[in-house]
């Protein structure tokens, strides 16, 4: 087979992929479920009130952070203080946005399929030509779009931090990526629970329990691993090889726990960035001069969250597609 033949084959496959992607994208843009859900979400005074309250809370907290710094020092002339304030505002805004994502995602998505069952519209939809994939994608996209809109309206507050300094563009981009990915995975959890549980109330409660477990269970586990890691080596009186092995096991377990949790992944990535000026990759010091290679946790979290989301979406589609037996 000649090289030109192979190139032609690859370019044909690429063209097919692009065509299929465009078709899928167009289908998602025209998905009737997204339009219906967004119409319902944005109708009346409720969304305006919700957005206003959210911005007032965000603005007030940022105002308080600014005021506390302004009272202590002159933020307009001191470059160091200005940068510290910028970082503080950035962390405050990102933390609030992460809280908003975690609080709103289950509320937005947990009722998506179960509410259709409760309203008795699920059967009506299933007798149309709308596929299970389009239904799940529509429900997921509408929940995510609403969260993205909330993230977007917080952007002016983040830009204050960027203006004051102390925050790099990489940090801003990574924080947006992590918030976006978190919105996707928490909405996906809500959707899958909604497709498994019959009532919206039960689906919402289960979704919140899982969200809390994901958010706080992982740091708790990390603490537990750290405590055990401190106790075991000294009590075993290990050989150098055993010590290295135990350290590697401890690092791997700790890293996995960090990488599956948005809060710990964000904090660990930030520490890596501040202390080692590394955004993607670094090494950790071990005993006897050994080094442990580490990919920045935000990357691992992103990959983990995307894979889990894809698996959950497939499961939700399977559940919705099921014909009653």
């Amino acid at each position, binding site marked *: 087979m000649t090289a030109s033949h192979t190139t032609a084959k690859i370019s044909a496959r690429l063209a097919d992929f692009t065509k299929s992607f465009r078709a899928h994208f167009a289908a998602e843009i025209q998905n009737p479920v997204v339009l219906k859900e967004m*119409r319902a979400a944005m109708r009346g005074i409720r969304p305006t009130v919700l957005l206003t309250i959210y911005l007032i809370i965000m603005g007030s907290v940022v105002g308080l952070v600014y005021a506390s710094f302004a009272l202590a020092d002159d933020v307009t002339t001191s470059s160091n203080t200005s940068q510290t304030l910028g970082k503080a505002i950035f962390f405050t805004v990102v933390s609030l946005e992460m809280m908003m994502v975690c609080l709103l995602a289950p509320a937005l998505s947990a009722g998506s399929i179960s509410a259709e069952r409760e309203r008795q519209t699920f059967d*009506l939809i*299933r007798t149309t030509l709308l596929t299970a994939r389009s239904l799940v994608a529509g429900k997921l996209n509408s929940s995510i779009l609403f969260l993205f809109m909330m993230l977007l309206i917080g952007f002016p507050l983040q830009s204050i931090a960027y203006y004051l300094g102390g925050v790099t563009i990489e940090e801003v981009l990574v924080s947006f990526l992590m918030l976006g990915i978190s919105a996707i995975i928490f909405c996906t959890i809500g959707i899958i629970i909604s497709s498994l549980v019959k009532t919206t109330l039960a689906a919402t409660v289960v979704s919140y329990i899982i969200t809390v477990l994901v958010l706080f269970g992982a740091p708790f586990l990390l603490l537990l691993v750290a405590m055990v890691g401190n106790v075991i080596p000294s009590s075993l009186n290990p050989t150098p090889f055993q010590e290295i092995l135990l350290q590697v096991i401890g690092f791997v377990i700790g890293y996995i726990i960090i990488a599956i949790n948005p809060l710990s992944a964000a904090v660990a990535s930030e520490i890596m960035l501040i202390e080692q000026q590394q955004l993607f990759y670094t090494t950790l010091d071990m005993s006897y001069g050994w080094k442990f290679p580490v990919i920045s946790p935000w990357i691992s979290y992103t990959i983990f969250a995307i894979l889990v989301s894809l698996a959950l979406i497939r499961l939700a589609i399977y559940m919705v597609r099921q014909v009653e037996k």
Partner: protein
Amino acid sequence: MSEMIVIRDLTKQYYQKRWVKAVDGLNLTVQEGDIFGFVGPNGAGKTSTIRIMCTLLQATRGDIFVAGHSAQREPRSVRRSIGYMPDFFGVYNDMLVWEYLDFFGACYDLAPQTRKGLITDLLELVDLSHRRNDRVEGLSRGMKQRLSLARTLIHDPQVLVLDEPASGLDPRARVEIRRLLVELARMGKTIFFSTHILADVAEICTKVGIIEGGRLVASGTPAELQQLVLPHRQIQVEILQQRLPDNPEPEPQQALIAWLKNIPGVLDVEHAAENTAGENGLVAPQENDSEDRKQRVRLQINFNGDDSAVSGLLKALVEQADLNGMGILQFHEGSRNIEEIFMRATKGIVT
């Protein structure tokens, strides 16, 4: 006319502490353009059959073919061919009327411009044009039902499958739905609907199927069913019994009844019972009736014979009544109503 719905050896079993057959070897054919009334008591298997037809439920055995497509193997083709209205409203209350139809139109892959025109036409058909921009939650029950009917038509299906379309509606709304169904049949739609309301069946159905215990106990046109379930004719006679002083017979109608029983083709003669005579006002004389009413005797003759035999019976009856000093006030064949056919066809079995 082609076969639009073919149900072949359909069986559906559920496990409810024990295996229960909701539908048991059902066979049925509905022709194009028919208004088919699927009648049966609660738990007869009507909804299970409809849910299998609409690709919502898997059959244990057998299949349903809609416009030639298998509900089990070609669900998308079946969905394209049917418009399904369940026995509940299933509406999005926070939507506007036109949005509701637009959403379902989009679910059937209709282009926005096509949907726009269709929505206007359908709202006109179901007489909801004036409520186009109102919220669905503000509609009355009857209006919601009409909106649901419009939804079933949005993709111009060949077959409409309606589960209890008139249940819970007031009399006016029921009449409106009935008129719409007749209008839709005139437009070429095949309509398959289940109902408890036998008056609706009698009024609009071209074919009827009676199901009980998951089995089809009778099916055909209303006339065929009458023939099948009640093979003899019921003739109502009202006689004026004149009280002549020289009449030697103390109970002249008894003599007439005895005479009638000897006529060839007469199976039985009885005083018209209230439940069968309601439509005609023929009521058997009661003890507390006034003297004037007592002079009228109403009889029901169960008769086996053709039209000329009925004509001969009338002629003989007039002569015999005259001999007994009586006159014939009314003589007509009673209509065997659908309730009676239903009661005779079913035994009250629930799966």
